[in-house]
């Protein structure tokens, strides 16, 4: 029983990290119709920037904010210069975002070197709690809380603000949004940059969890995020939240009992869901 509680916490913490990547990815796909492969790179950059700023300031919070700002700025630049010219052209989007992923991942190696850089958790959440002989990592609880707070914030923005209204309207008909006098391109940029910032935050939070940052850490998490987006339903942040929890728990459980099966388990789960519900668990209309 104790093992299951521990795995539950590990799985939820893993799910929270995947959610940070998947939520942005899903909204970008749903609203902009963009297949975005830069998320893994933004995840890496979030990790490196946070480590760098943490080394300069010694403040974990400032390091997280710096990662968010860096991710947001990179997202704005990516959208404005590279993605905007290829809206509606999925093949070009895949090629361009894959190209950006390669270039900016190599840029990380150029700036910070090819070897992993060790990272530590902030002192104030480096410990554990022992409750009824169950060991609970404070940092994992912190990750779960961050994941919940981000989910609440996204829910609020999407359902209770004008930005959210325009996002939901734009998912159905960007032309009609413009015909109402709304500059949809500003919202497109904001959503892309916001998704990028979430991915960078995910990277910044991931590094203290695993104890180091390296240039290859983005790809695995990006694959998991794509699985979550498809599993949860493209365009649905709610689907991303549920999908992240399912995938996080699956990864935690399977990797504990039989690690070689972890990747197969997530893909099998995806196949099972898609067989029963081809649009994913909470799939909404997605722009062609």
């Amino acid at each position, binding site marked *: 029983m104790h093992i299951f509680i521990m795995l539950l916490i590990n799985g939820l913490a893993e799910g929270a990290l995947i959610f940070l990547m998947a939520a942005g990815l899903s909204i970008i796909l749903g609203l902009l119709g963009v297949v975005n492969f830069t998320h893994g790179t933004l995840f890496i950059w979030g990790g490196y920037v946070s480590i760098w700023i943490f080394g300069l300031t010694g403040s974990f919070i400032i390091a997280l904010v710096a990662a968010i700002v860096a991710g947001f700025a990179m997202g704005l630049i990516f959208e404005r210069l590279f993605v905007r010219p290829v809206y509606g052209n999925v093949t070009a989007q895949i090629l361009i975002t894959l190209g950006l992923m390669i270039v900016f991942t190599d840029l990380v190696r150029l700036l910070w070197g090819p070897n992993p850089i060790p990272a530590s958790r902030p002192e104030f959440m480096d410990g554990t709690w022992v409750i009824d002989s169950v060991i609970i990592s404070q940092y994992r609880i912190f990750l779960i809380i961050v994941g919940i707070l981000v989910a609440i914030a996204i829910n609020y923005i999407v359902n209770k603000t004008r930005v959210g209204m*325009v996002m939901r309207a734009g998912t159905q008909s960007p032309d*009609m949004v413009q*015909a*109402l*006098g709304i*500059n*949809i391109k500003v919202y497109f940029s904001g959503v892309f940059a916001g998704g990028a910032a979430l991915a960078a935050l995910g990277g910044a939070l991931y590094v203290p969890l695993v104890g180091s940052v390296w240039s290859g850490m983005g790809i695995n998490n990006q694959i998991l995020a794509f699985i979550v987006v498809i599993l949860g339903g493209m365009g649905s942040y709610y689907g991303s939240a549920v999908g992240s929890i399912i995938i996080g728990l699956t990864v935690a459980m399977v990797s504990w009992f039989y690690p070689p099966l972890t990747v197969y388990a997530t893909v099998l789960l995806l196949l099972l869901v898609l067989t029963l519900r081809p649009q994913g668990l909470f799939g909404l209309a997605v722009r062609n």
Partner: protein
Amino acid sequence: MEPLLKLDNVSSFIGPFHILQGVSLVVYPGEAVVVLGRNGAGKTTTLRTIIGLIPASDGQIILDDVNISKMPPYKAVRQGIGFIPEDYGIFDFLSVEENLLVAMWQEDKASLDRRDYILDLFPDLKVSYKRLASTLSGGQRQMLSIGRALVNDIKIILIDEPSKGLAPIIVEKVRDVLLDFKEDKTIVLVEQNFEMACAVGDRFYIINEGRTVLDGAVEELYKDKELQKKHLGFVTA
């Protein structure tokens, strides 16, 4: 009198197809102008070109002395245009309330007062105010689309086939609303329903193969069966 809207030899393309090849028309303040023509003549494209959803490749579009030919749609519309598309353009994932709010350029008292007027004008929308727009009937969607165009202080309304696909009783309601608008708004109406067009319109333009080929008073067109047969392909009873 200076025209409120003027199209001068406007051309536009959809992909490789040269749809508008020289549309010219003028609309004076306070009048209702009907754009007529056979299917595929370029009527809808004319409206979409005016607001910039389809970029004008040549010619000029002047609204109230401002050249809007090269403006992006959101800027062109903000010069004072209310657009009601053929498919209503309702956002299904938004409630009726949100469909009205998202269209407001400013959420000020004047806009909220106009919203209240719209809800009084269309009581069905008041009843369904908090419901998702996807649950509305065709007639209610048309009402919402008209209402959404009116929440801002606009100078001109562009309406594309408002009677299409609606039950006769709803068409009558829409016609009455448009006649009501005529008292203080300028209207450009694209309409296949000739009876409706004649009931609402003061003047007409006929578009054929992307060009304006004829204009005049609606009353004259209504009486002239030869003209109807030649340009519209039908004759009224």
